[in-house]
């Protein structure tokens, strides 16, 4: 039976304890905000490339494109449309361009055949009234149409010019018209004619894709008939397939982002449990009075759960608001990471992503309810005789200590199963890590008992009674302190774990780069992707490189995306014959045999690709080529950290047999003994003038750039780690406030005995500092175990990488210092409040 008065009594309690309630709401909000923010940012970033994968019109039903990322020849379009009367196919040239006048900005250029696609102009482009469609300008001059908002941001008016370029070429174009885009659906789109787009992107005679735009929604379309007309390596797919492929490419990245957010929620859960159980414990006398008056345990549990649900909902709503604000910050980091790692994308203008909001609300309310279940049960179990005081709760915990320890050990055993049995997959890996955290959390009460005993023994020689008092009062309030210590330990362990993982990853990548960068100088056209050479080099420069004085040998690389078993992977054609095979370190196969297999027409596959598809030495890998799908023998599996999507490497001579493509993406220059590196670079730079700008770097410079790129892609991880610590800090502040309040009577007695407020303050700071020390000492081994799981289980299962494990002493010491620092910082306000206690009021506290 619902009781209005019971409800009113409950809410007034929270209002009276507004600071603790507010901190709890902020704690829930921060956790939810993090998850919602990450999810919203992810959706915004993914939406950026979905824009390019959806087709130019809502009526696009199919896309015709290559299985790799090379373009289609103009001639194919003409043949299909004119000879085979495929009148519903329209050509599209698309790509991203750097905007010289707006450093750091990119535009998505979309080149269309405006004569063929005239109907689009009406249904798609909303030109301002009175502005004619600039068809002659588009067809005869390098003109572009921009969304009004993009033009406004850059301060452009009609007739102004802008410089766009990629791959070391840049072209001036002018603004011929603007289109209204009130919802920002078009993003940073630059519409132009096909020919202009081809010039801008450096792809003369190439189309990105053909789009089939249905004349009516019910118009039949024979895809099989069209497929028969297409050359090998070109496929027709329903619209959306590419979008799904791109989503799959970032799946592991997305899972890891989500997992980081969820870890913050786990931390928040510990702290919520602590705060809720304390808040409810304060109401124990009220519950006993109500029980004596005839309120049933069911009514109490119902009331408490209602309160918790409403609080969870309020905190979650706050969190969703925070998250949407936070997503603006996170979006830039996510877009930066995706653009560095996978493909160029942009910050799309999208509205609130309701799945992200729903996830946040669900997690917030769910977490609060789960955290509050035990405290609610305890509240309902309060007997009406009002004798369940703190001492009962402490003795209950002490009785359960053995059970908790055994439970913790059982969790750790189960965690080992999840982490060591590969069949569990990524989900099993994360479950294993969560079980490790849960197991250690259950061991915390025992750890606090032992740890404080050891601390007491170590501090015994000190003359100060207060230090001893500070140590002894830690196990005294075991039920409360153990939860706070567990929460802090988990948050710090996560920081230690992620730091060790990132450091291990970084060391592995540096060692790998140092081993694989064998040439003295590297050159490539500047692209928008940090980890791929997605641009093509002018053939004149390739020829020029070979004749440069001081250059002994030139290795060429062609880098493009292809499709293996439905997923995108990098294909690298390397002209490295005559060079040593020492650049590769093999996970399967020995160097000499692999080299021989490569020269015999086989391929090398990277470790992530082999892991994902279960490829073994000698297996046959089918690749789509210009001569149709062809089998290639796997000659070796090598370590590679450039792409989690996977890399297939073959010799240029093999590539040339199956692909009608002479393009080169990058060069490696090997200098003759005694040659001056700087002189060679200067000579090569001189050769590029008027042809194509190139990034020409020494190996050392490339190494530095690559490490900077690595650090950039982990910026979001570092950011999330800091935010998780903030969540923990807020929760810890609430928990310590609660502890201080709970010890009011005891502290009041100390005041009556003559302790000064500042001495009380120092006592509390000392105690929380020692609690921080206990948390830190536990966090370090837990963090190392989490790092081990992240390196050897999560990274391996998500990305397929084998990393070296590097544990730096500085990180471990930093963990302990961080735990002590966080605890002391969070204790400042509670300690100050304790100092204000009136002794008389405090000793009356339990009677009121």
């Amino acid at each position, binding site marked *: *039976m619902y*009781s*209005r*008065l*019971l409800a*009113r*009594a*409950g809410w*007034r*309690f929270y209002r*009276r304890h507004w600071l603790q309630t507010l901190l709890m709401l902020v704690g829930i909000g921060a956790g939810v905000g993090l998850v919602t923010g990450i999810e919203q940012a992810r959706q915004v970033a993914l939406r950026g490339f979905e824009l390019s994968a959806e087709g130019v019109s809502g009526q696009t039903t199919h896309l015709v494109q290559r299985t790799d990322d090379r373009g289609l020849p103009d001639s194919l379009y003409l043949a299909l449309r004119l000879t085979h009367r495929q009148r519903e196919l329209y050509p599209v040239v698309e790509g991203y361009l750097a905007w010289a006048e707006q450093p750091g900005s990119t535009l998505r250029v979309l080149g269309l055949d405006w004569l063929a696609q005239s109907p689009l102009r009406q249904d798609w482009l909303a030109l301002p009234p009175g502005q004619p469609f600039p068809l002659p300008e588009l067809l005869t001059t390098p003109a572009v149409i921009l969304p009004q908002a993009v033009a406004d941001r850059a301060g452009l008016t009609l007739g102004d010019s802008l410089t766009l370029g990629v791959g070391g070429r840049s072209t001036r174009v002018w603004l011929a018209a603007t289109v209204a885009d009130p919802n920002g659906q078009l993003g940073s789109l630059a519409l132009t004619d096909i020919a202009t787009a081809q010039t801008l992107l450096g792809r003369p005679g190439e189309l990105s894709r053909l789009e089939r735009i249905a004349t009516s929604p019910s118009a039949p379309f024979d895809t099989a008939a069209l497929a028969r007309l297409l050359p090998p390596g070109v496929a027709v797919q329903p619209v959306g397939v590419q979008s799904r492929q791109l989503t799959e490419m970032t799946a592991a990245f997305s899972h890891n982002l989500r997992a980081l957010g969820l870890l913050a929620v786990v931390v928040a859960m510990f702290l919520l449990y602590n705060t809720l159980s304390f808040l409810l414990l304060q109401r124990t*006398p*009220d519950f*006993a*009075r*109500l*029980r*004596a*008056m*005839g*309120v*049933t*345990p*069911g009514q109490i549990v119902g009331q408490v759960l209602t309160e918790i649900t409403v609080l969870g909902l309020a905190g979650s709503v706050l969190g969703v608001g925070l998250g949407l604000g936070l997503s603006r910050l996170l979006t830039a980091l996510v877009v930066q990471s995706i653009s560095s790692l996978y493909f160029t994308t942009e910050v799309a203008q999208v509205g609130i992503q309701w799945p992200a909001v729903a996830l946040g609300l669900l997690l917030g309310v769910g977490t609060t309810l789960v955290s509050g279940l035990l405290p609610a049960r305890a509240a309902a179990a309060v*007997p*009406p*005789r*009002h004798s369940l005081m703190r001492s009962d709760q402490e003795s209950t915990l002490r009785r359960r200590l053995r059970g908790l320890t055994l439970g913790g050990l059982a969790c750790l055993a189960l965690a080992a199963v999840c982490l060591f049995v590969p069949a569990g997959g990524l989900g099993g890996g994360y479950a294993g890590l969560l079980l490790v955290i849960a197991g250690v959390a259950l061991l915390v009460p025992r750890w606090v008992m032992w740890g404080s005993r050891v601390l007491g023994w170590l501090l015994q020689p000190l003359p100060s009674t207060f230090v001893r008092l500070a140590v002894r009062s830690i196990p005294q309030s075991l039920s409360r302190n153990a939860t706070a210590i567990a929460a802090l330990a988990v948050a710090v362990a996560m920081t230690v774990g992620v730091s060790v993982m990132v450091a291990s990853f970084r060391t592995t990548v540096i060692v790998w780069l140092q081993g694989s960068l064998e040439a003295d100088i590297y050159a490539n056209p500047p692209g928008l992707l940090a980890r791929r050479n997605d641009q093509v080099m002018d053939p004149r420069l390739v020829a020029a490189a070979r004749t440069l004085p001081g250059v002994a040998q030139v290795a060429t690389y062609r880098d493009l995306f292809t499709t293996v078993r439905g997923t995108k992977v990098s294909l690298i054609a390397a002209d490295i014959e005559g060079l040593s095979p020492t650049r590769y370190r093999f996970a399967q196969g020995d160097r000499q045999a692999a080299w021989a297999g490569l020269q015999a027409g086989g391929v090398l596959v990277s470790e992530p690709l082999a892991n994902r598809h279960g490829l073994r030495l000698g297996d046959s890998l089918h690749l789509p080529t210009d001569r149709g799908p062809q089998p290639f023998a796997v000659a070796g599996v090598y370590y590679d950290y450039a792409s989690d999507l996977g890399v297939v490497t073959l010799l240029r001579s093999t590539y040339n047999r199956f692909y009608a493509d002479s393009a080169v993406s990058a060069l490696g220059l090997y200098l003759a003994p005694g040659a001056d590196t700087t002189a060679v670079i200067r000579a090569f730079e001189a050769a590029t003038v008027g042809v194509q700008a190139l990034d020409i770097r020494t190996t050392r410079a490339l190494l530095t750039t690559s490490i900077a790129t690595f650090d950039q892609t982990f910026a979001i991880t570092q950011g999330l780690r800091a935010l998780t610590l903030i969540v923990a800090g807020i929760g810890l502040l609430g928990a310590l406030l609660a502890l201080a309040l709970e010890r009011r009577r005891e502290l009041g007695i100390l005041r009556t005995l003559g302790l000064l407020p500042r001495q009380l303050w120092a006592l509390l700071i000392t105690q929380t500092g020692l609690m921080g020390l206990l948390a830190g000492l536990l966090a370090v081994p837990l963090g190392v175990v989490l790092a081990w799981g992240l390196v050897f289980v999560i990274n391996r299962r998500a990305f397929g990488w084998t990393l070296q494990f590097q544990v730096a002493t500085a990180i471990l010491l930093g963990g302990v210092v961080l735990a002590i620092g966080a605890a002391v910082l969070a204790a400042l306000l509670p300690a100050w409040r304790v100092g204000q206690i009136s002794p008389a009021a405090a000793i009356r506290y339990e*009677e*009121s």
Partner: protein
Amino acid sequence: MASHPKLQTRSLSKAYTEGETHHPVVRAVDFELAPGETVVLVGRSGSGKSTLLHLLAGIDLPDSGEVWIDGEPMTGISETQRTRLRRRKLGLVFQFFNLIPTLSVLENVLLPLELVGQRGPAAKRAATELLEAVGLAHRTGVFPDRLSGGEQQRVALARALVHQPSLLLADEPTGNLDAENAQRVLALMRRLVKDVGHSQLIVTHNPEVLELADRVLHLVDGKLVPAPTEIPAYVQ
């Protein structure tokens, strides 16, 4: 319809065990309380008075024996049944008032009515009348922490009586009050309970409470014993 005793116990016993040691607190207590009767229970500190009262109120369970309230068993039933019986039949007054701090004076008094399903203007009228009777009609919106001890106990008395219980159980109702406030509460207990004909059992050390008693029960080491000829030293 046959008239039941308002309260009846049979061989009521309770002991606490600490390690190997067994401490009997209430030992085979048998007594009845007739309709309209006021019984005062006295005894030394630690004699088991409060425990006996808790057993009678069903907020603690006996090791053996039975309790009936108005003919309905308080023992041998589920916790929920016991709670429902308590909310209908009993009014409780404690030494430390035990008001709900987050409810106002009026709301504290309304709560027992709401628990038995009485809401709305009629309930509010009943609560207000009772608050008038205890002299606190002007403090209905005030929260307990703003009241003096005497005022808090008067609210507790109103709260215990508002739902017309069969029996009022009071544990040291004047134990935490000064003489003037104790007098005032006792006067109210006489006027609102005894003179109206309600039944009540009062645990006390206060000799002035004996004036209310139709009968005095003495508890010594958990057992009811015959009344001594003089007022014992522990009633003072």
